[in-house]
Structures are given as C-alpha cells and as structure tokens.
C-alpha cells in the first residue's frame, strides 16, 4: 500500500499531546480559501519553486526537455507541461526547485514517523494531517495500524469529509480524532468552501456515538470563520452532540502567505493573529455555551 505525502514534521508540539511526528498526506476535497497548506490541496505531486532560494542561474531552464520552465525575474513553472522528471531539481545548485509530494509505502511512512519514538513519552506519538488524511484513508489506516503495533499513540487531523467506511477503518487504529468544523451552516459552508457539511457532521456524530476521543477544532480566520455567531453556533451544536466535548480554537497564523507567493497566487485573507484579549473574547463564548473542556495551547 502506498500513499502520496508532501511533508513530515518532527517535534510537532501543537497538534495532540506530548511531542509528536506529523505526516502530511496530499489531496483535500475542501477548498478553504485560507488553506494553510496550499501545497497539499492537490492530489498529485507538483513541482514547487521557492524564489528565495533561487540564484537565477538558469540551469533548470536549460535542462528541462519539456519547455515547462522559463526564466524572467524568477523562474516560472508551466505546471501543465511539467512531467515531474526531476532533472531541474537535480541540477539546481540551490534548493529552489523541489518536487512536492512523493510516493511512499505505508511501511516507509511508519518507519519515518517512528524514528523519533524516543521523544514520544507517555502521551506523544504520531499524527496524520494533510491535505486531508482521509482522502487516502486506506493508506492512512495502514500507517496508523503499523504505528499502533509499536504501541505508539496515534492521532489524525481531519475535516471528516469522507465516506463512512473510511471513518470506520480509522476507528480501531486512531487514539485521537482532531476534527475541523469550520462552519455550522451548510449553505455558508458550501458557499465558502465549495461543499456542504452534512457528511462532516454525520461522521462527527458517528465518532461520538462510537466513544472515540474527539477534539473539535475551528480555525479562527479573520473575515471568515472568526465571528461570534459562527463560533457560538458550533459550540452550541457540539455541546448538544457531546456534553463532555473538547473544543479548541486555532488562532490565525499569517505565516503561510509566503507559500502563496511561491505558488504565484494571492492569499485572500487579510489580517493578523488574534491578540490574547481577542482570544479571551472567543473563550468567553465557549464558556457561555457550556463547553467544559476548552483546549488551549
């Protein structure tokens, strides 16, 4: 069983307990305009160009047999022509060109994740993220199953837009589900993200009914999700589904803008991370809605 991944982060300290290693799987069915990992959206690998590491030497243009590269002020990649042969990556004396996304077997992925097992301690472990981890659910389940065999704590970050059998496959091998609910209103959800959220909420309720350890998370995006009404609605809903629910608000992180520059795309979100005071305001809403376990960093 193989999967397509685009990153593996060690010493991940924000998603799940303890110290973790996080594997990023490629491909996502959602199209959130604020996506923090745009390089993971597409299901296929892609050539990634980072202008900051480019020396402008033109070696890559010369070596490309498909005429997919051209050099102006920066290198421009014609993705439709690129066959991902890797010649340009190899010849680049800097590290400006990189094929983003590679195929690995579940066994390789598990080995790389477990390389840091000495750091996992009592509550650390491995996390699958993305993209959307469940878009390659069979691969994801096998990776976590291999990790579980070694007694490692496992977690998955998911939007839950996936068939029920995918969720069922993950249940026995996943210790913690970190699930994203961005909007409660299905119409807004569809309007902003491109798909409605009924399957997401169904899967969420299923997980709760199965007694899974679930942490609901909402990214606070200025101009999008970060409104009192939206947060209150989500809080109220999840409180009804699960009286003991855990809820985490993820503060906006503007650092991903540089990734959009590299992709020659504009980042649609204006604004900055919320201040401590602003965050307290959101936490107050959760308290008012009776959320018992507010997860904070």
């Amino acid at each position, binding site marked *: 069983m193989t999967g397509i991944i685009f990153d593996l*982060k*060690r*010493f*991940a*300290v*924000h998603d799940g307990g*303890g*110290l973790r*290693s996080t594997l990023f799987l490629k491909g996502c069915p959602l199209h959130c305009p604020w996506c923090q990992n745009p390089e993971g959206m597409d299901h296929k690998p892609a050539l990634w160009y980072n202008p900051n*590491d480019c*020396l402008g*030497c033109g070696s890559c243009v010369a070596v490309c047999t498909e005429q997919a590269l051209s050099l102006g002020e920066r290198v421009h990649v014609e993705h439709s022509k690129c066959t991902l042969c890797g010649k340009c990556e190899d010849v*680049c*004396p*800097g*590290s400006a060109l990189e094929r983003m996304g590679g195929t690995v077997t579940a066994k390789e992925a598990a080995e790389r994740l477990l*390389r*840091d097992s*000495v*750091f996992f*301690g009592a509550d*650390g472990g491995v996390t699958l993220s993305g993209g959307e981890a469940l878009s390659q659910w069979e691969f994801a389940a096998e990776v976590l199953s291999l990790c579980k065999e070694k007694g490692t704590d496992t977690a998955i970050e998911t939007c839950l837009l996936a068939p029920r059998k995918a969720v069922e496959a993950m249940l026995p091998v996943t210790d913690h589900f970190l699930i994203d609910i961005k909007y409660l209103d299905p119409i807004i959800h569809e309007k902003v993200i491109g798909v409605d959220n009924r399957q997401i909420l169904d899967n969420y309720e299923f997980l709760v009914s199965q007694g899974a350890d679930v942490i609901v998370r909402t990214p606070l995006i200025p101009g999008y999700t970060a409104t009192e009404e939206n947060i209150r609605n989500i809080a109220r809903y999840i409180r009804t589904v699960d009286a003991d629910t855990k809820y985490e608000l993820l503060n906006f992180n503007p650092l991903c803008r540089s990734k959009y520059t590299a992709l020659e795309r504009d980042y649609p979100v204006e604004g900055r991370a919320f201040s401590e005071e602003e965050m307290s305001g959101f936490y107050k809403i959760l308290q008012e809605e009776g959320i018992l376990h507010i997860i*904070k*960093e």
Partner: protein
Amino acid sequence: MQIEQISKLACPERIARLKEEMLEEPRFASIEQACIVTDSYKETEGEPRCIQRAKALKAALEKIAIRIEPEERIVGNRTSGVRGGVVFPETGASWVDREFETLPTRPQDKFQVRQEDIDAFRRDIMPYWRGRSLEDQVRMAVGSQVDAIAKVVKINQKDHSQGHICPNTKKWLKLGPVGIRREAEAHLDQADERQKDFYRSVILSMEGASAFMERYAVLAEKMYQETKKENLLEVAKVCHKLAVSPAETYHEAVQATWFLYVILQMEGNASSFSPGRMDQYLYPYYENSRKQGMTLEDALELTECLWLKFNQLVYLRNSNSAKYFAGFPIGFNVAIGGQNEDGSDASNDLSYLFLQAQSHLLLPQPNLSLRIYKGSPRPLLEAASRVIGLGSGMPQVFNDEAVVPALESHGISHEDAMNYAIVGCVELTTHGNALAWSDAAMFNLLKALELTLNHGVDMLNGEKTGLDLGDLTTYETFEDLEAAFAKQIDYFSDKMVECVSQVEKMHEKLLPTPFLSSVIDDCLAKGQDVTQGGAHYNFAGVQAIQVANVADSLAAIKSLVYDKKKISREDLLRALQTNYENAPLIRAMLLNKAPKYGNDVDWVDQLGAKWVNYFADGLKKYRNGRGGIYQMGLYTVSAHVPMGQNVGASADGRYAKDPLADGGVSAMYGRDGQGPTALLQSVAKLPFMKASNGTLLNMKFLPQFFKTETGIYKFTELLRAVCNLGISHIQFNVLNEKDLRAAQKKPEEYRSLTVRVAGYTAYFTELAPDLQEEIIARTTYEAI
C-alpha cells in the same frame, strides 16, 4: 520537601538593592595584590617556591583592602571594588605591560584603569617579574613550539593558573582553616624534607585564611558600632567564629563556602573554581538551621547573598584569551539534583531554593547546572524548565545516564562518578579529589583538514605548517583523503602533547598551590601539591573542534566530488583556495546538495562520529605530566569565533574566517533544518562515552515555548528524551531577536540582560559586536 512554598518566595528587597549597587559600580583593573605579592617575593627570595607562594598569599590575606556593604550578609572579595580585574604577575605580567592602556577600549572584557596604577605597575612590579612569570618562562621554554602549531592547536594555561577544579568544600566546612592546619601539623613529624615544605606551606595558608576572616569580623563589628545595622553584627559573629572553628548553621556554612572560593582565587587567580554539588553538602547545615527556626525566606536571602557574591569576582584575561572565553567567565559552577551513590534521588529543598534564587537574579553566576537522570522527579524538571524559560541560559542540563558511564570508563570509581560535578563551563569532574587540567588545549580538526587538502600549506597565509601529504587533486579516492587526514591529526597530536607537558612542568615549578592542595583529596596524605600530581585523579583534557564542520565538509567532498562527481577535485580545491571568489555555484551546491550534520542523516553523522572517535583513541597513548591520561572534550566556549578566523574556506560552504559551528556538538548554525529532535538524534550518534572531559550542545528556543503549562510539560518531555538518548549536556538559550537588537542600541537599559555565549552566561551588552551578531544569527526553534 517544601517545593510549593519555595516556588512562591519573592525576591528579598535587600537583594534587589544590593544587586543594583553591584551592577552600577564600574570595573577597574587592580594592582593591589600584585604589589603585596611582589614585595613578599622579594623578601622570601631563595626559599622553596611553595613557601614563597604561601607567604605571598598570607601577606595578601592580611593586608589587602577589604570592604563590606552596609546591607551585606555574606561578605568577602579579593579587591575592595567589585568585579575588579586582578593583575596577577606570578602568572602573567608581560601581557599586562603590553596591554594595560588598552584595557578600557579593547573589544572584549573591558576594564577601567587608573594612570597611577599603570605607573606603579611599570615601576614596582613589572621589573621584578620580567623573565620570572609563568608567561615568560613558558615562552622561553616552549614558545616557538607553541607558535608553530598555533593555528591547529591552541595550548592553554600559558599565562594563568589552570583552575577548573572542584575542591572538597565538604571537608573545608567540616574542619575550617584551623582544623586543616592541625591536619597538616600532624603530618609534619613523619614527613621528608620536601613534604615538610609542603605541609609548612599549607599551615601558612591556613593562618592567612583565619586572619582574613577575622579582619572581616573586626570591620563588621566596627561598622555595626557606627550604624547599628543588625546584619553587620551577625556578620561579625559569623566571621569571627569561622576564623577559629567550623561552620554549624546555614549562614555560617554559606559564608565559609564563600571565603573558600575568595581565597582560592586569591591564591590561584584561575579561570574557575567550582562549588559543585552545593545542594548536597550544604543540606545538613540548612536542615540544622531550619530545625532551629530559620525561615525559608531567610534561607533564600542568604542563598541570594551568595549568588550576588558569585558575580563579584571576575577574571582578567589577555585580549586574545578574552576572545576565546568572552564575558569574564569565572565559572562558579553549582550542580543541583542528580542521584546519590546508590541511585536514589538526591534533590532536596536547596535544589529548589537555588532555582528560585536563579529565577530572581538572572545573573551570569553561579553557572547553575541541573543533573538529570531517567528517574528525575517531574517537579524538579518543571521548576528547572520554568527557570530555563526565563532566558538566562540556566540551569544548563547534564545527563547522569551519559556522564556516569563515561567517567567510569576513564578509570573513575562508581562512587566518585555518581558524585560528579561540573567545573567552569561544561567540564566534568569528580568532587574534591581531581586536578583534571580540563583546558590543556583546543585542537582544530577543521584546520587540520584544510592543511591535508593543500600540501600542508595554510590557505590563509601560504605558510607550510602541516605535513605535506598531497592535495585534494592527488587523493584518488575518498579513502586516500581520509588516510592523509588521519596522519595530519597524529602529527599535530604529538606536538600538542609535548607542549602541554612542558606547560605543566612550568606550573609545577612556579605555581604550587598549597591552599588549594589542602582541599583536594590525597594531597595532604601524600604530602604533595596538586601541581606535582598530589590529587587522587590526574587528567588532562583536550577539545576536538568542530565536529559539525568536519562532518559537513567531508560529507560534501565524499558525496559531490568522489561519489556523484558533480564537482571536480580541481574545481573544489581552487574554490577553497580562493574563498569561493568566482565559484558561487560550487558553494551553493556544497551548501544545498550535500546533507548536513544535525538532520539525522546517518552517514553524515557517522562521519562526524568517526573522526571524533579517531581523535579520542589517539589520545590514549599519551600520559600527562602528572601521570594521568588525556581525555577528550567536545566544546569551544566562545572559541568557535576566533578559531574560525584561523581557518580558510571549508567544503561545507563556510567562507574563510567565518565562525565554526558553536558550542561543541551543535550543528552549523542554520543548517539543522529538521528541528530539534532530528538535531538531538544526530548528536546522540557521537561517542559521548569518549568525551569525558565535557561536551556542549547549544539549542535556542523562543520564549513563547515556555509561556504555558503545556509548553513547560512538553519541554520536560524533551529533557526526558535527552536522558534516553545519552547526550551528556545541553544548554538552552531562550531569546528573541528584538530584545537583542534593542540591547545593542541601548546597552544601558539592558545592563543585566544575560545570554548564553556557549559554556557560560555573560552580559550581552558586554560582548563584542561580532559575538553579538553571531548570537543573533543562530537558529531559533519556533514552535511548529
């Protein structure tokens, strides 16, 4: 234990005032002791050197000007001003003569000077010591040999005493100067003539020590009569008692400890004497006083008085030495926590009180070290992590799981290994029974590689200083290159050991240290000074520098030149010789297309380990001047900057004269892109069992990591993993660039901002601009 109560104790107001006064006082170079000592030597001409030394010390203890601050509770200094730079002509006068005027303006470790002192030094002191000081004698005996290898091997201890010693403070507390004097007297009867001189020198030193304490008692009593301040009366009583009998209370034990270190410095003027496991040997006194009603507040105030004192002695180095060891480190290294001999946990109330004192003061001294092991109690790790998060670089962390077996494998008993302490910055030692000569020399492996690639010719100045074994173009295989590198290392190792032995002999001849010898086990029993080999353990330590640059350079050559043939041997050699002048693409490839140490890439890390192993194994065949073995260390303190200035462009993409990797086992800055766990995994592949002289890994974190309880918890998890990985030592710098930029602009507002330089903490604003820049440039781990 009263962990909770201790963590709530506030900084005493007295301490805040004393700290402010101390930091406001300007630093001056001082020649007072030099004058007294020179006069004494003139009077004792012809007597055995140990007697001359003891009489000179005694004269200084009896005559040097003393001062007590009206609010002090712990007293004693070796100059009447605080942080005075003591001119010490017995070890070095010529360099002072050359550099005296430049002390206020030199780039690193500035001191103010008084013109009348300069005049008096040249008139009364310099003429006597010309040709007689350690510095001049070493230069005459071995100067040209030292110079010939200087770019590869820096020989140390040429113009100052060795230091890096952890004395037996427990014995000093138990016996006091009177008890030790009696011990020496008891030995006199059966002693031979040479031993008799030694015992007499100990007796003279102890008489001086008692007199010194009594002078403080008299001064405090007089000041009490004038001011009626109760603390002064208390000081008078304590000092008077200690002059004649051993300590019993916590206050007395803390004061006695401080007197010991002041007198050791007056005798030795060494780069460090370290108190070691103070939470262990002070504990019985603490417990005794607690039973008699001493409050926790009082215990903390006394502790913090001592903490301030640790900052009042600094060390005057020559300008070159100050580059290598910047920020006047004097290394009062205090170790807390760890285990007892039987493996049970050793932490106690004092461990926590010391951490609390550190969190209040955040000063460069003491150099606070935490010993951890697999069973370290979580509250101790959490308390320590909170203090680390405050950003003073302390406590630095030592790992029993790595250190104890390393010491045992170098001939140290299990009992002594379990009781190890740290001296100076990061050097490992047993407690109270070793002269480990930890800083005998620093060996620049990267420079040896440069010479190997270039016919033994220095790429910076064109001089032939190494063996001509060929150059990069003549080594047909990578193995050929490695074989030549090994020969080059052997060549310089031999030369190094010759020089070190000569320097040691000179110390034995010129600088016996009877006072120190009285608190190092076996010296009194053997009737032998430490410099003669009187200590129970006699080591010499050499630092191998710098594993990251060697691993990265060899990995790049192996991969890009020999294996993949992306760069020709001729092109690379030319690029190195010309400092990459017309070869930016070659340099970019070296940087980007070859994996680097610090990213958990096995074959690269193993290259580093291989050469460190080779160097350590090579040391096994040598013996030092006192009959002991050589040990390898892996640390540079701040020497990675000046040592980098000696090295031409290297195949890791480093430009000529740029700094080497910092610390000792750290990755080259900015090249450990896989985060801290990958770095730690790389580091863990090095042979820590062989690095029993000490190692240094620097890691930088941003303060945000420590802001939450979750962050503190995750940091303790990281510490636990370090235990399991068997890495012997880590220092954590918690800082952000904004603070540091602001401090450069307005040093006066950031006087007490401390940063980890490498093996110790210094005031950031007192570092030279290039070191400041270097600290700012180092990678910082943001939370991912």
